[in-house]
């Protein structure tokens, strides 16, 4: 569902992503883990077609991000770090707007809006302006907006950052349900414990390069670490020593 081969992304002369390769299969959850500035968001933006790759190929849902960006967007759900909602619009209006942009409409769209709001516990806030929402409510609404058109691929950029326990749990449950539904999920996170619990495979990215890619257990075993956090720390400390090992 997601295939990244030799992806490079440069901002001018500054190479931010350095020839990374990975894939996400249908029904699989892959975590992209790395410190700030490692290139996680840039990678996700290339996958979401908002940035063009400098080199390499990226296929999402069978479409090339450079040749068929509109088809990629029609098949992908992207949840950026910031929910980016329209504050002066109500929850229903926000969802209706994005539904129309995804080609949905009529009673089918209204049914889908009600269904998503109910699932995320936002039914009571349906006609409330988004500017009045708490951070957790905004993130839930952004999630509803992202999955409105029921895409087979999910790209989530730090979806639980800054959320309280309950809101965070709702997002994690959503990722698990998506996996069960056969969707491919790629998400970036700082929370290693969370990644360990949810991900089938993880990729540790440091300085724009993938240092380790495999199941959490394999990634730990490859460096003799007891936890994913130890393995992560190991790779972050080694960055710049030319180490680049792939496992799994």
């Amino acid at each position: 569902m997601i295939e990244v081969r030799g992806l490079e992304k440069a901002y001018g002369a500054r190479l931010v992503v350095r020839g990374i390769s990975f894939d996400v299969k249908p029904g699989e959850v892959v975590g992209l883990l790395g410190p700030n500035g490692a290139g996680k968001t840039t990678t996700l933006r290339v996958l979401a077609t908002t940035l063009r790759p400098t080199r390499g190929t990226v296929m999402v849902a069978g479409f090339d991000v450079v040749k068929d960006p509109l088809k990629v967007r029609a098949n992908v759900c992207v949840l950026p770090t910031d929910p980016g909602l329209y504050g002066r619009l109500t929850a229903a209006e926000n969802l209706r707007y994005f539904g129309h942009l995804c080609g949905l409409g009529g009673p089918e769209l209204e049914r889908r809006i009600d269904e998503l709001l109910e699932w995320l516990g936002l039914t009571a806030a349906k006609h409330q302006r988004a500017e009045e929402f708490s951070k957790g409510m905004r993130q839930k609404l952004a999630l509803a907006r992202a999955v409105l058109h029921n895409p087979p691929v999910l790209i989530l950029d730090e979806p639980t950052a800054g959320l309280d326990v309950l809101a965070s749990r709702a997002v994690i449950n959503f990722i698990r349900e998506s996996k069960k539904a056969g969707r491919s999920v790629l998400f970036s996170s700082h929370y290693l414990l969370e990644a360990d619990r949810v991900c089938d495979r993880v990729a540790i990215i440091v300085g724009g390069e993938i240092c380790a890619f495999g199941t959490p257990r394999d990634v730990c075993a490859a460096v003799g670490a007891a936890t994913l956090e130890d393995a992560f720390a190991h790779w972050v400390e080694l960055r710049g020593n030319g180490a680049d090992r792939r496992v799994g």
Partner: protein
Amino acid sequence: MELIAVWAKVRAVWLRELLDSVRDKRTLYMMVLLPIVLMPVMIVVGPVMMVRQQESLAREVPVAVVVGAENLPELAGWIESTGALAVERAPAGSDVAALETRLSEGEVQLVVEVPEGAAALLSAEQPVPIRVISHSGTSRSSMAADLFQSLLGRYGEELVSRRLAERGLSTELLEPFALEARDITRREDFGGRLLAMMIPFFIVVWAVVGGMYTAIDAGAGEKERNSLECLIMTPVPGAAIVAGKFLAVCTIALAAVVLLIGSASVSLLYMLPRLLGAQGLLSVNLTGGGLLAMLATMTLFVGLMSALQLALSVFSKSFREAQSYVSGLMFAVMFPAMYLMYVEEIGASLWTYAVPVLNVLLVCREVFMGAVGLPEVLVTLVSLAVALGLAFWGAVRAFTHEKVLFRT
């Protein structure tokens, strides 16, 4: 089919932007409150206050101190008899500096000095030097000075008539010409000229101001609240998103311009004459063709300004930065508009009509003055359409360029 689907998305963006704009107090203020409420106040209050002040000045009789009135008692008495000026007599040799202080304090409005021997000079038919001291910094004193000069002139004419009569000559000797003047300006030309001076200025300024907040919000505003990234991740071509946003800015700006023209016209042609007690003095005679030319010119210009503002807004990193760029654009259109407001020019060279802003000002002015020509209108429309196309292309380029979108 594909086109209908794209249009549905353009429409969705257009309606969302409009809904967002009408819920934004800043847009409502610029679009509705300023044109409807403040414009009439600006247009009506100034002239009405000026006329009221003139009337009040006319009611009060200014005081003139005549120093050495005893040197020519007939003059002071004659002036007094007209009732236009009150005369305060001061003996010759009075302290003029003290009188000047009273003049500057507004206690008296004029000081007139009549020299010693004035009566003898007059009898000898020699010119009598009369010194007038006024304080032109105040309206009342300058009015008193004008009034005194006019009264002195009339008194002089009376003396000359008397002298001519004594010699058995007619006063017609002094008037070799009998002037008969006729003004061919029609009543509607007064109204047309007044509107021609003000409306084009309002159109060009409000084409920027009216849609300013919608344009800034649609580009830089979306960037700032991070909704732009979510928007470009939707399966909608960039040009379609820009088209929807462009239509929204145009709608708001056009509504503001129309409201402004309406309220300015009502203020100038209806409210102002009524308040000044001159009903029916001003009227405008617009032709259907002229109106159509003005409407087309205005719409294309609003489109051009909307596309430019949108491009600047998308290019900006923040709301604040966009505000600076758009304010710059406003000044760029304001200067030629202000210049032309005070310059009477009809029949400018054809090339002038190819310059955006100038052409809008000229065409609108000529429509109100009933002097618009087809070639000038056509050059204006083609020029504006080309400029609009380029500005729209610029907005799409800015919107689909990752370096601009993620400019930090």
